């Protein structure tokens, strides 16, 4: 059973400036100890008192201003940061798509990058070899796949990264904003594939500023503000209070029909 549980979790970053990040300072700090606040390492509280419980089928959008803690929360959910206080438990195979430049070597070919990314996501070589053709077809990169990655545009990198994660059946898919760099036609394709993936697999958490994306992929949402969960509810409610307007207002009728939402926000929210 795929699940994510976070109890009262906080993520505090110690900020070691050049001086405090040395043994000398630590040794002198203990002897002297009179400098006061300078002796201590300053801490940035990126997240505090986070309580989240996600189960199979949850498709959560993350909204909030820059620096509200969306990316840090995604990393907490991925298990990259273990909470400094509180605790967390993640059950399931996690596939994060955060920064598209990382885990990708610009000097090696697209094929080799597919292989390495797949291996990092817990696949075996053989399993990846089986999927390479499928990914090549989905990304439409064709002969570019044998070129070094540094020749790729941003959009092409997004295609590659999405191609890999959507091919491997992750149980928990975590997407950070930045996949907006692809063109409309590919978006259509990616949406179908992501939708399909979300239906098949467990949990999607998606941080984005784009209403369209959120509406397409998510059913519930979390509003992050100053490192805390400000609101957790249905997507329509949360985005309406975050942006001050109904995200469904400007959508075309056919889109609304596809995602099964009424045009006007009813009293009791979206669903």
């Amino acid at each position: 059973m795929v699940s994510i549980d976070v109890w009262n979790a906080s993520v505090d970053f110690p900020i070691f400036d050049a001086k405090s990040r040395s043994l000398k300072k630590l040794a002198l700090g203990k002897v002297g100890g009179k400098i006061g606040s300078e002796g201590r390492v300053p801490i940035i509280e990126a997240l505090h008192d986070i309580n989240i419980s996600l189960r199979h089928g949850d498709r959560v959008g993350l909204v909030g201003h820059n620096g509200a803690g969306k990316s840090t929360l995604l990393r907490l959910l991925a298990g990259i940061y273990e909470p400094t206080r509180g605790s967390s438990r993640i059950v399931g195979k996690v596939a994060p798509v955060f920064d598209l430049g990382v885990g990708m070597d610009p000097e090696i070919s697209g094929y080799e990058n597919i292989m390495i990314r797949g291996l990092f996501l817990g696949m075996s070589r053989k399993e990846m070899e089986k999927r390479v053709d499928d990914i090549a077809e989905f990304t439409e990169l064709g002969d570019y796949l044998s070129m070094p990655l540094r020749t790729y545009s941003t959009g092409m990198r997004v295609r590659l990264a999405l191609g890999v994660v959507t091919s491997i059946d992750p149980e928990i898919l975590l997407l950070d904003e930045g996949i907006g760099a692809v063109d409309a036609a590919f978006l259509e394709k990616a949406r179908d594939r992501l939708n399909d993936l979300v239906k098949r697999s467990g949990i999607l958490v998606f941080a984005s500023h784009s209403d369209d994306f959120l509406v397409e992929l998510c059913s519930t949402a979390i509003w992050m503000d100053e490192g805390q969960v400000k609101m957790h509810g249905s997507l329509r409610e949360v985005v309406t209070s975050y942006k001050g307007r109904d995200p469904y207002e400007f959508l075309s009728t056919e889109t609304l029909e596809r995602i099964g939402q009424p045009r006007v926000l009813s009293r009791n929210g979206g669903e």
Partner: protein
Amino acid sequence: MQPTSTVDRPAAPLAPNSRTFARAFADLRDAWHQRELWAHLGWQDIKQRYRRSVIGPLWITISMGTTALALGLLYSQLFNQELATFLPYVTAGFIIWNFILGVVTEGTGVFIDNEGLIKHLPSPITVHVLRMVWRQVLFFAHNLVVYFIVLIIFFPALTEQYTMEGDKVVHPGLSWSVLMAVPGFALVVVNAVWVALLFGIISTRFRDIPPVIHSFINLVFFMTPIVWHVGVLNKVTGGEGEGDGGWRVLIAELNPLYHFVEIVRAPLLGQTQDWHHWVVVGSFTVVGWALALVAMRNYRARVSYWV
């Protein structure tokens, strides 16, 4: 459905469980299961370094060959040693030293250099260590070619009994005992993993450690019997004294790296080997792994915060 529902949500664990030995061992075990990943990455690193060069990784071998040849020629004359046995001695010692050097210097930066991967992809931190150690093993394998070339050239001299200048010990010459180098090197690799784990974690927190190690490692090279033989120490202490050669021999004996080099080098050259080298290396293995496991237990989860 209430999205914030607490249906089937288990009661919160009483304490955070990130600082336990169980998690430290799980990290090691998971990393071992991902060996396809780090093996692939280790290879990739080597191919990467020599991409677009014509003879590629052969450069590793060539550079080792010239260095060993030059050092062997020079120091055999300086110490008045027989070239036929001293050149293989320097070659084997230098190849092993290069492995140790690579592990220690790259081990300090093993997490710092992989900051991007650590912050963006969840994986056991040991994966980065194993990738680095595997890369060094591959370098070692490339360098071993030089050893085999030297072995072929000096095969007659090495298969007979010989003594090193200044030393009384008669070495039996190469035989099947050369296979002892395999467990010897395996033990060195096992040690390489804890060294990289421990030094990697400490260096990530205290960024002064890598420069310190980088500046002292060259000194250690000259203090370790690689381009000189311990027999020389006997000679300068008078040489005639039975048993220990006085405090000067301690220069070698107190240097842990001497024992690490010796358990691999002696079998490769058909030299007699004292069991105390194995005892020293074995003790380092146990103590080192214990320290590394404690560091893993307490600071494994902090590495992603520190990088």
